[in-house]
């Protein structure tokens, strides 16, 4: 029988493992980059419009 503390320990081991922490870090970095440079979300797009047009490989409209 699996008790609550066992589940907590296993999930702790999994979440705090190096691969998962690396995954979290890269995912967050990608999403921040997407939001700043590639998102169509109007407030972000409008604020960073000039920066986007002046950065190599960044497409805008």
């Amino acid at each position, binding site marked *: 029988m699996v008790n609550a503390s066992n589940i907590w320990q296993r999930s702790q081991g999994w979440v705090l493992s190096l691969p998962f*922490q690396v995954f*979290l870090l*890269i995912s967050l*970095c990608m999403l921040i980059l997407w*939001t700043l*440079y590639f998102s169509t979300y109007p407030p972000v797009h409008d604020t960073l419009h000039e*920066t986007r047009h002046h950065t190599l*490989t960044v497409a805008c409209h």
Partner: protein
Amino acid sequence: MVIFVSLMIWLWKSTPVVSQPTVKIQIEPPLEQVIPDATLVKFQLQALDASGGIYNDALIGVHISAPRKTPWFTSDFPIVEGTELLALEAYAPKGKLEFEQVLPIRGNYELAVTVTPEVTGSYAPFEQSLKINVPENPVKYRNFAVLAVILLTIGAFSGWILGGDQTIAATEIAPQPVRMLLSGVTLLAIAALLLVNFSAEMAEATSHSHPETGEVISSSPRIEKNETMQLEILGDTKAVVGKLATQTVKITNPSTGEPITDVQINLQSVANESNGLMFAYQAMPDLNGQFTWKEQFFDGAPHIITANVMQLQVSHEIEVEGIAPPLSVRLISLLYFTLIFVVGLSAGFWGKRNTQPIL
């Protein structure tokens, strides 16, 4: 030896060269000084006959095509890539056509030029394809380098921490539940950013937003007249990035309705967002008192087309629909940025691991 060289030069010079009519192109400023989406480029096209003489009374047509699509190394206007920017045909009294146009992106532009006699049969019409290469805006390289350095630094710093000793000391101030909480918050942040970006992509499919800074509302009427002439501007008032929009100006005598053909009409296209001049041409109306051209409004923001003849000025506003860059193009560029971060991360991680004492 001298005789042999002289003979060779004589033979080379005396070889008959079959000359063809050509179109000579001059660009101001020089191409290496042109900055995409910023510099108003002056084009001068001169049609020359086989002997290098000028053509009188020619009709010169020009179609400018933007550089081909480059999804793996996109420009900032991917929708414009591979599309037609400008199409006009105009009467060129001395075989010369002059106009000004802003070029949106770097790369090879193609100008398809046709030269036809105004009086049919006076000479054989011909066409020529010209190519010009516009360099990339140097600011873009600088900004990319700055971003790459930031990503490498943050990546290396993160990697250095991750590569360190992960065992928890007895006096650890962030116990495991706290670190679990922080990881949970990171997950939440990822979810929130995903939600914001996903809903923005969905909203983009139905509507479009663009900064409206420096908006200038057209102050001139579409028709204006005085005792001797009436000037009118016609054509599309809605345009889409990537497609040409047709514009026409018409000049007539207001009392008789007869077309006026012996005046010069100053045409200008101004982007509201930057208040920058995008296209300028001094047109001669045709026999119907009209001049028509097709233009792409590559910046997905409103433009104002103005035409003036002496004291008369007419204008109309073009509502331009921008199109978001393809998702695939943006994902490719995101991949490049992420790879730079991962390179920094790996360097920091292995750098730390290799400097740690072996216990």
